[in-house]
């Protein structure tokens, strides 16, 4: 009964979203607010209706209603109720429904926001956002329906999935489900899909506003940018968190000692993040200087198309990958939709090109504008390199018939230098003024920062082993970090001097006065922490492997791992566990007892390597059980990674969230608006760096 309700709600949701899109477009085109109001009501209903559908599916998962094929695929009696509920996004059908539901939620939220000067955009925002929602719901309705059942068709070898009985078929209800893919039973993988999807779907809001602005001919005004700034930031934040949680999951579960493998699915997520980041920066030039209007449009179209492309890659398994668990016939539908979205948006943009002329000119070649433009260029170049490396194996197979692999060495060599160039810009740009900046004064402000960062990097290089590339990488990270911190110091000192405030109060007020700017710097610090983790991963990582008898030891860095014993036992969730016990010593001092494991999930016939990690702020000792002898446990093989700086990646994630929250939610509207305004020139020249004081 509940299943039928869920299915019916899904169907109604599809009808409503399609109607809302059509009615809004009609109302907007003909200028009839009756239709727009009707579309709005329909659009507001989509989210609650889809919520019913989602709840029905969650209820089926919790009750282990194996009549539903989806429940039988991803749930099992051995799973805890919490895991069963999260199985909503553990498989193909549930994920698509979940996607559509989140998107409907975003659209619903944007509809209830106060619409003031941007009222004209309203119908087109509904039309575009609801069209996309309708597309995803239609996938759930027609292609991957989560409410399908299994049927036994006489004479057929395999079970048939269908909503209603094929002729002569018997319903098939398995006694036990397959259960969630064991690799997915981890907090990172429980949090990663929702956050990623929130990021992907969140970008529909700025995209819909941008298209609405183009359609109504309001692209020249920055109304759409201001209206969507926070939505974009929030979407970007979720995407960042999704990336980091995915990295954490890979680190804990996949057992290769790293957090980023340049896997196609990771790349698919990274691409919209890259263009989204470029977009977040380029809109600032538009807001402050009225430049780059066309460019913003291109970036948001790209970001949105790449979000769809990311879902396409993850959900259709078109590029075989360890992450792409889902496989289906979604490909063509997705492909056509992405193509139409991209081409439609671009042709719309092309028609409106004359409207989007720049309002200001460049005054100096050395200025913040050019730095931003260059930064955008680097982001796009990285995006292209990542895109090309991700799709090239497919192209190669299509053209020459040879399968090839494009692995991490490619991405590190091609994208690495560009990322380092971005670090340089990240450090220099806050020092540059809008409009123009003298090279001499830039050199003067940059000199102390360069000096401090050189000393820091030299100190580091002295402590760790010296490798020229590693040293240069560390220096760049240090340079950008010192530059950002110098901004805080400068602001605090200015307040302390002019207003005689205490340092901490000055810092708090600095944030309160210009949350957007200083929140942005906090995000930068977070990104730098992650960059540090990447530098550690690339240049300072050590690994060793060896087979040990009980009592023998394996050494790495300053650590020694002593093998104590090996045991096997049956664990929860239907797994057999082989667990080694070992003691970790630093020099001669005992620091931790470690128990790396290999879990074997019996039903799924899948082994999962569970590393044991001794974690400190500076480095992780990551121990894996690689092999053992079945009889006698005579010789057991361990692999140890020494991962420096890796914890900074997770910490960086926290800093990013904090920074976005700081800059996206100003204390009062007044502050936010002040910070947007162009200021007269003489004030700028009095304080070259910036827009606040």
């Amino acid at each position: 009964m509940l299943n039928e309700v869920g299915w019916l709600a899904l169907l109604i949701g599809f009808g409503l979203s399609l109607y809302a899109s059509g009615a809004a477009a009609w109302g907007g085109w003909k200028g009839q607010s009756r239709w727009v109001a009707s579309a709005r009501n329909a659009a507001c209903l989509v989210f609650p209706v889809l919520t019913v559908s989602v709840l029905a599916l969650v209820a089926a998962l919790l009750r282990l209603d194996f009549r539903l094929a989806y429940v039988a695929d991803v749930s099992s009696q051995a799973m805890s109720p919490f895991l069963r509920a999260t199985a909503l996004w553990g498989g193909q059908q549930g994920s698509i429904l979940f996607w559509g539901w989140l998107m409907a939620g975003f659209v619903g939220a944007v509809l209830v926001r106060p619409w003031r000067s941007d009222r004209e955009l309203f119908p087109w925002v509904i039309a575009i956002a609801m069209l996309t929602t309708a597309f995803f719901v239609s996938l759930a309705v027609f292609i991957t329906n989560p409410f399908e059942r299994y049927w036994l068709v006489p004479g057929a070898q395999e079970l048939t999935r269908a909503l209603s009985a094929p002729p002569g078929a018997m319903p098939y209800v398995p006694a036990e489900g397959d259960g969630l893919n064991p690799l997915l039973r981890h907090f990172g993988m429980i949090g990663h899909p929702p956050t990623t999807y929130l990021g992907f779907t969140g970008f529909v809001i700025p995209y819909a506003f941008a298209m609405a602005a183009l359609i109504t001919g309001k692209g020249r005004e920055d109304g759409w940018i201001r209206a969507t700034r926070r939505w974009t930031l929030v979407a970007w934040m979720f995407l960042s968190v999704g990336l980091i949680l995915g990295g954490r999951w890979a680190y804990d579960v996949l057992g290769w000692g790293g957090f980023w493998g340049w896997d196609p699915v990771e790349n698919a997520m990274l691409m919209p993040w890259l263009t989204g980041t470029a977009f977040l920066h380029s809109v600032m030039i538009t807001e402050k200087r009225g430049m780059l209007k066309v460019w913003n449009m291109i970036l948001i179209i790209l970001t949105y198309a790449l979000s769809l492309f990311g879902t396409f890659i993850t959900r259709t398994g078109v590029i075989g990958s360890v992450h792409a668990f889902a496989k289906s016939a979604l490909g063509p539908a997705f492909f056509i939709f992405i193509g139409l979205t991209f081409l439609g948006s671009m042709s719309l943009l092309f028609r409106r090109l004359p409207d989007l002329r720049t309002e200001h000119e460049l005054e100096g070649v050395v200025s913040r504008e050019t730095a931003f433009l260059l930064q955008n260029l680097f982001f796009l170049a990285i995006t292209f390199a990542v895109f090309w490396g991700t799709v090239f194996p497919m192209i190669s197979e299509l053209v020459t018939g040879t399968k090839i692999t494009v692995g991490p060495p490619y991405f590190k060599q091609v994208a690495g230098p560009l990322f380092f160039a971005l670090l340089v810009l990240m450090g220099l740009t806050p020092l540059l003024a809008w409009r123009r900046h003298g090279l001499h004064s830039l050199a003067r402000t940059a000199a102390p920062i360069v000096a401090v960062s050189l000393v820091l990097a030299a100190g580091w290089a002295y402590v760790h082993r010296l490798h020229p590339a590693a040293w240069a990488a560390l220096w760049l990270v240090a340079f950008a970090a010192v530059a950002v911190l110098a901004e805080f110091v400068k602001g605090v000192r200015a307040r302390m001097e002019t207003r005689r405030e205490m340092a901490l109060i000055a810092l708090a007020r600095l944030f309160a006065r210009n949350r957007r700017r200083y929140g942005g710097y906090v995000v930068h610090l977070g990104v730098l922490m992650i960059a540090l983790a990447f530098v550690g991963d690339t240049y300072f990582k050590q690994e060793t492997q060896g087979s040990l008898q009980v009592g023998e030891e394996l050494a790495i860095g300053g650590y020694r791992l002593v093998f104590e014993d090996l045991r096997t036992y049956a664990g929860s969730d239907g797994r057999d566990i082989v667990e080694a016990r070992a003691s970790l010593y630093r020099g001669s001092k005992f620091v931790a007892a470690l128990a790396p494991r290999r879990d074997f999930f019996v039903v799924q016939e899948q082994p999962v390597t569970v590393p044991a990690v001794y974690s400190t702020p500076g480095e992780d000792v990551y121990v894996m059980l690689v092999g053992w002898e079945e009889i006698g446990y005579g010789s057991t093989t361990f692999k140890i990674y020494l991962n420096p700086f890796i914890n900074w990646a997770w910490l960086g994630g926290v800093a990013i969230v904090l920074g976005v929250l700081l800059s996206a939610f100003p204390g009062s509207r007044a502050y936010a608006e002040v910070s947007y305004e162009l200021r007269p020139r003489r004030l700028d020249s009095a304080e070259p760096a910036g827009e606040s004081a």
Partner: protein
Amino acid sequence: MRRRIWLWVLLPLGLALVLVVAAEAQGEAPTDDQVNAIAKKLYCPVCPNTPLDVCATKACQDWRAQIRDQLAAGWSEPQIIDYFVAQYGERVLAEPERSGFTSLVWILPMIAAGVGLVGFVEVVRQWKRRRAAAGPPSMFAASPAAAVDPETLARIEGELEKMA
């Protein structure tokens, strides 16, 4: 004739050298780390997107054992990698080759970055040129009011008002 003598001297010397090297290679069993260093540069030929040094499947364990045997037999790293490419195709290489059709994967991003850079310079130039055409550098400098289009003027006034 003289050349022949050289040959007679060199041949045994060379042979001895080969034997010593081979004996040395055989004398020390290759460590897991040596095996992994090579396996890292290869991808598992069966599992999608998994480097050979971390792949846990039985097949990959066997492949690593094979690398160990080859190392023990005195093979060099390029020889082993070539062997795997010949056996399982180009897809086992973690780093795509820089020749043939595959070189496109390396070349195109560079071309794209180059085109982007040219575009960047061109945009900056255009902006500058428009500025030169628009008049003197400062908006407070004595420029005829008529040179500023009415829309911009209205915008500036609006902003000044808001600031007050």
